[in-house]
């Protein structure tokens, strides 16, 4: 298992009667960027959200199979969901800053997790620098976070995740609401973050997947169709469905 950070074994997920994920087996390597691609509704977000147990809140979601972070059973009865979410961070499609100041957006979870008071300002500065946001916000930390631009908000959401030093960062189409310049900044950020974190990202942008990912997983109707290095998937995929999707023949 060396080098594997996150994995799913025989994962089936149902919403009510409807099966959304069908027997998914996948492993995400440590300190690499893995992209999930596939047509809308194929279950990419659903798969991503099962790793940080976001489905716990949906009463009609039912999960079978096993999910692991290293050797930790993510759905093991004794394992605390808050610990798991602290170790597996998530960035959402739409920037969702907390209705608090820029500073509090980062300090909030640090306080909740009892980081020593005197360390907090430094941790926050480091995370904001890491997220290429420090220079833009350093003079207005008390400003409400919702007053930032969409791209800045999204980088704030990334900083808010990074500041907790999780082991994995899940990103669900983090650039879909952003302009090309903000998108570029976030892509650079992702490439830098992978030195410290394991990153799994959902994207509809094939160029983006090519630019940033080491491995790519193609999903279709709840199944994992093909999973390989970025080069193989984009240059000479084995599966006909993958070929057609990459070639833009269906969406």
């Amino acid at each position: 298992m060396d080098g594997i950070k996150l994995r799913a074994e025989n994962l089936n997920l149902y919403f009510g009667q409807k099966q959304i994920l069908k027997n998914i087996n996948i492993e995400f390597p440590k300190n690499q960027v893995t992209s999930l691609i596939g047509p809308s509704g194929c279950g990419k977000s659903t798969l991503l959200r099962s790793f940080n147990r976001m489905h716990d809140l949906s009463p009609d979601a039912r999960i079978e199979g096993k999910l692991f972070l290293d050797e930790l059973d993510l759905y093991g009865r004794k394992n605390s969901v808050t610990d798991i979410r602290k170790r597996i961070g998530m960035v959402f499609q739409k920037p969702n800053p907390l209705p608090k100041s820029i500073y509090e957006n980062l300090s909030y979870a640090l306080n909740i997790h009892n980081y020593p008071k005197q360390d907090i300002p430094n941790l926050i500065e480091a995370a904001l620098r890491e997220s290429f946001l420090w220079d833009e916000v350093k003079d207005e930390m008390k400003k409400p976070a919702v007053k930032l631009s969409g791209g800045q908000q999204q980088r704030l959401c990334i900083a808010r995740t990074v500041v907790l030093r999780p082991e994995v960062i899940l990103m669900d189409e983090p650039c879909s609401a952003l302009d090309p310049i903000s998108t570029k900044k976030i892509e650079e950020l992702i490439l830098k973050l992978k030195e410290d974190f394991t990153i799994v990202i959902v994207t509809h942008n094939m160029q983006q997947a090519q630019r940033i990912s080491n491995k790519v997983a193609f999903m279709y109707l709840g199944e994992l169709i093909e999973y390989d290095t970025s080069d193989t998937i984009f240059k000479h995929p084995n599966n006909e469905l993958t070929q057609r999707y990459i070639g833009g023949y269906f969406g």
Partner: protein
Amino acid sequence: MEKKRIIGLFSGLVLGGSTLIVVLFLGIILWDIFSKGFPSLSWNFVSSFPTNGMTQGGILPAIIGTVLLTFITTLFSVPFGVACAIYLNEYARPNTLTNVIRASIRNLAGVPSIIYGLFGLALFVQALNFGTSILSAGLTLGLLSLPYIITTTEEALKRIPNSLREAALALGVTQFETIKDVVLPKALPGILTGVILTLSRAAGETAPILFTGVAFFINGISASPNQEFMALPYHLYMLSTQHNEIEQVRPLAYATASVLILLVFLLNIIAFYVRFKNRTQD
């Protein structure tokens, strides 16, 4: 084309006309009350006790009674109502049971207030032995207010997008902390608006306090919750229909009505301000 224009003109007239009629009636009522009430309104009127069999003097005990009564109502109905709404919206799974509970609460909001009065008499005055007192009356009004507070609070919580809850949860924050630190602060203006509007309605109720503690007249003001009390709406009712010298006290009745309306206006303006301030914020 021509036909469409006529229909447009016509519907504009009907809608605009209806609005005008409503505003007109409101204007007439307010004008009638204030024009007859203002001559008797004075500092003395709001700051002294009634004298000479209530044909002279002021309404101080009724004002204080209504304020204290509303305070008791708030103490009882707001914590329970908000807690109940949080449970229904944030914790309860959406199943038949919670739907039945929700429907019952909505139906309770439609129960006539005199029924609450009788229920308060049976429960608080007699069964719990609180007697006819400001406590019994406040609790009765609290019961009346609960369904409104629960419903408006739940609406305010529903307006908070799930993405905000997920933002906090994804950081390893517990559900309770998420509600306390993220959801409630964001929903607070909406909750406050509902609470204030509900209380302003409760403050003007007569029927629920009729059997549970309101009095014609009291000699002194006491802060004790087991005393009977005077209240503005009942004082007004009494002056306008039950008094021996009904013609003589008519100006006082109008002045009392003016004070009651001003009080309710004040609460409504506060609610409006809370909502307005929140809207300009985001």
